[in-house]
């Protein structure tokens, strides 16, 4: 018989919140089932109950006809369920190969069979069409590469039921295509696949059936996706009608001096000759495949890596930026990192302290004492301005949701009144509504005169808010597109510059 997973009337409460309330979901072999909902709707909780991380308070779980909940993730794995979690569960110090075969390393006489291990890992990566050194340690990989390793890890278990929790959140379009090919193949072999994503375009491309969660309730249960329009699904997710955003073509004056100009910039990381200009109030999108060198370029400009040739000009003047500190205090450039938890926030600090970290010198009294009153005013200003949901400014940043954390990590740069802001993958793992508000915010900031470089692997995002789009491939700029915000034509020209000559 083919694989089957039935979730029946499952409930789960955490102190103060009913995370799931009598949720039903029927996942059958040979189908791809979309599980949709905003952040906090209960998707991750449901997945954790299926895989034995949490215990359900009530309800049933039937796996291939057998009725039982799993007590631990290992039991779930043995029952043929593989999961790609939203938070990557990789061991940083282990190699790619070791991580891929972590749950079930091939043994011979009780000792790990290295040849077999390499073969398995290689097979999984080849299936994904993803090339990487099997002996590289996880900690040296980019976020996207880690995501792919995580997927490969699920593939090697040859599971009959695969749960994918936002597998495409941080990989590029090209890799997504390959992943979808793999998913289609698994589907044709009778595997049951649960697919969680915030990207509705992708959901429509790959999924057959759909379940929508809202505030822990399954408001749509295992229905054929084709019967619903995208707007109807969004309405079900958010519970009210979200008006389609107007397409606005902003006017950016490029006759004036560029605020930031790179002339034949060469870096120690491998950029040979990068030239670009950023104009006042412009949102300059930078699209590219993973490993194309976009974040690396940003970090080099900000002084983290060595510039070995060419010039950086700010307002027409050639400058040397020595460090992030220099970039912030002297040149007024900020960088919103793509790894908000690792580099963007102090998770065990309050929101107030997180916002003020860039402006400590401006809120001092005598003797280097921080004026807490002033600090609080600044924090409140940005909490209000960005609509950050907090109990008060003393709430710890680590207790906020992903979207709100991201807003906090942006706040500190706004508080520092930077003139140029480089924003790296701002909406990874953020739900539809928060994403929309983020896009509005970026446009608003640009309207106020902030010049923004937006690095994103989300094509829809780049096209929705950039004024101009640069395409980077292999540490080289290979295309520039004036954004008319006409999705089909713009995406086509971006894709053609990525693939031309390769």
């Amino acid at each position: 018989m083919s694989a089957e997973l039935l979730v029946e009337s499952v409930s789960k409460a955490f102190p103060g919140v009913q995370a799931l309330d009598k949720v039903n979901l029927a996942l059958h072999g040979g189908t791809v089932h979309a599980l949709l909902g905003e952040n906090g709707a209960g998707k991750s909780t449901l997945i954790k109950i299926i895989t034995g991380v949490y215990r359900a308070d009530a309800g049933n779980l039937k796996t291939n006809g057998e009725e039982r909940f799993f007590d631990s993730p290992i039991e779930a794995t043995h029952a043929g369920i593989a999961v790609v979690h939203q938070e990557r569960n990789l061991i940083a110090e282990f190699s790619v190969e070791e991580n891929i075969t972590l749950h079930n390393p091939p043994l011979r006489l009780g000792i790990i069979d290295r040849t077999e291990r390499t073969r398995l890992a290689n097979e999984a990566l080849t299936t994904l069409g993803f090339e990487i050194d099997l002996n590289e340690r996880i900690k040296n990989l980019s976020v996207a590469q880690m995501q792919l390793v995580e997927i490969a890890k699920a593939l090697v278990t040859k599971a009959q039921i695969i749960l994918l929790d936002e597998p495409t959140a941080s990989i590029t379009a090209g890799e997504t295509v390959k992943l979808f090919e793999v998913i289609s193949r698994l589907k044709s072999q009778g595997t049951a696949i649960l697919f969680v994503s915030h990207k509705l375009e992708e959901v429509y491309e790959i999924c057959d059936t759909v379940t929508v969660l809202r505030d822990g309730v399954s408001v749509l249960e295992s229905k054929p996706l084709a019967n619903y329009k995208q707007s109807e699904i969004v309405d079900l997710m958010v519970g009210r009608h979200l008006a389609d955003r107007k397409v606005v073509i902003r006017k950016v004056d490029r006759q004036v001096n560029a605020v930031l100009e790179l002339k034949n910039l060469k870096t120690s990381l491998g950029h040979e000759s990068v030239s670009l200009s950023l104009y006042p109030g412009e949102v300059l999108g930078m699209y590219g495949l993973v490993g194309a060198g976009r974040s690396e370029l940003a970090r080099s400009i900000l002084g983290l890596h060595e510039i070995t040739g060419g010039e950086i000009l700010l307002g027409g003047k050639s400058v040397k930026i020595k460090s992030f500190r220099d970039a912030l205090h002297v040149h007024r450039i900020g960088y919103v990192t793509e790894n908000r938890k690792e580099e963007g926030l102090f998770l065990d600090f309050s929101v107030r302290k997180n916002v003020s970290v860039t402006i400590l010198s401006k809120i001092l009294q005598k003797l280097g004492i921080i004026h807490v009153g002033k600090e609080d005013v600044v924090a409140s200003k940005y909490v209000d301005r960005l609509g950050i949901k907090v109990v008060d400014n003393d709430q710890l940043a680590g207790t906020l949701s992903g979207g709100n954390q991201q807003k906090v990590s942006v706040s500190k740069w706004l508080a520092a009144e930077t003139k140029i802001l480089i924003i790296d993958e701002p909406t990874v793992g953020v739900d539809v509504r928060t994403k929309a508000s983020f896009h509005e915010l970026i446009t608003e900031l640009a309207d106020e005169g902030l010049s923004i470089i937006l690095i994103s692997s989300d094509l829809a995002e780049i096209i929705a808010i950039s004024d101009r789009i640069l395409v980077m491939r292999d540490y080289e700029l290979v295309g520039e597109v004036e954004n008319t915000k006409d999705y089909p034509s713009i995406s086509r020209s971006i894709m053609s510059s990525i693939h031309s000559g390769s």
Partner: protein
Amino acid sequence: MNVAHKIKSLVSDQRFVLSLLTVALFIFFGLKNSAFFNADFVIYPLIRDAATLSVIGLAQLCALSIGHLNLAVGRMAAVSALAAGAAYQYLHVSLLLGLFMGLFVGASLGALTGWIIVKSQVNAFIVTLAMDFALLGFVTYIYVTFTGATTAFTTKPAGMEFWRNTSWHQYCVAGVCGPKIFPMMLVPAIIAIAVIGFIFSKTRLGRELLSTGSNLRAAKLSGIPVDRRVITAHLMSGLLAGLAGIMLAFTNGSFTAAIGSQFMLPSFLGPVLGGTLLAGGSVAVLGTFIGTLLTLIIRQGLSVQGIGLETLNIALGLVLLTALSLGQIQKMFTAIRMRGRT
């Protein structure tokens, strides 16, 4: 204000629980054996030791604030005491000048250690361990070279007797005298606690140190001069270690190579029991004093009961494990509560 809420937040405050435990144990030991309440022979020396060990605890706390360790606190204390002792012996400087010279040496050693960590990018654990060995050799060599067989500087600057043996009850304001059980040694400890507490809770420097400890990469990306802060933290650590070393030398009445050799374990006990995170980013300055006091009361209390040293250490270890596990258990509950929000 909601009274129930206030009580709840008080009970969840580690310092409050720790103080309660300290007072309870103090009374318990006193009731078991009234000799424990002897002001001159038990309480006074206990508080005097607590003063010195709190300062060494603060030295460790400074390194912990940025997520580092300083395994050389004891030896930095020894070198500072050596410098002060040599200054009294050969340069015949005043008490205060000798103290400053000793502190300067301690601070310099700390800053040097910090600088090596920054430049070499080697883990602080390794660097301070190496530093500890190097200084151990240095201290022994100097004492043997200069003092021969006695291996001690014994010149006592004017005023030293006063600091080591008098208590607050000799000071009276308007007929009200200080308590007899408070030694003068408490004064430098109080000053150190006040200054370090002020730095970490109120100032930019403190915030920058804690930011560095909380998340080094985020701090760097937010424009905080993390390299300089690493050096500052170790400088403060060396300075306080020096102070503790000199305080111990004053208490002992002589400057020897053995000073600081018993400092390493207590330097961790105070801050960690008080609630300082080993991973950095959060410190408990007052907690360090209470934590130190607690360990000394347990030690002293048990020894007054006539319990042998071995048993005593076992008991101390168990108490520490329990106290620290309580914090961990509390953290687990918080984590479970937080998971509900995802």
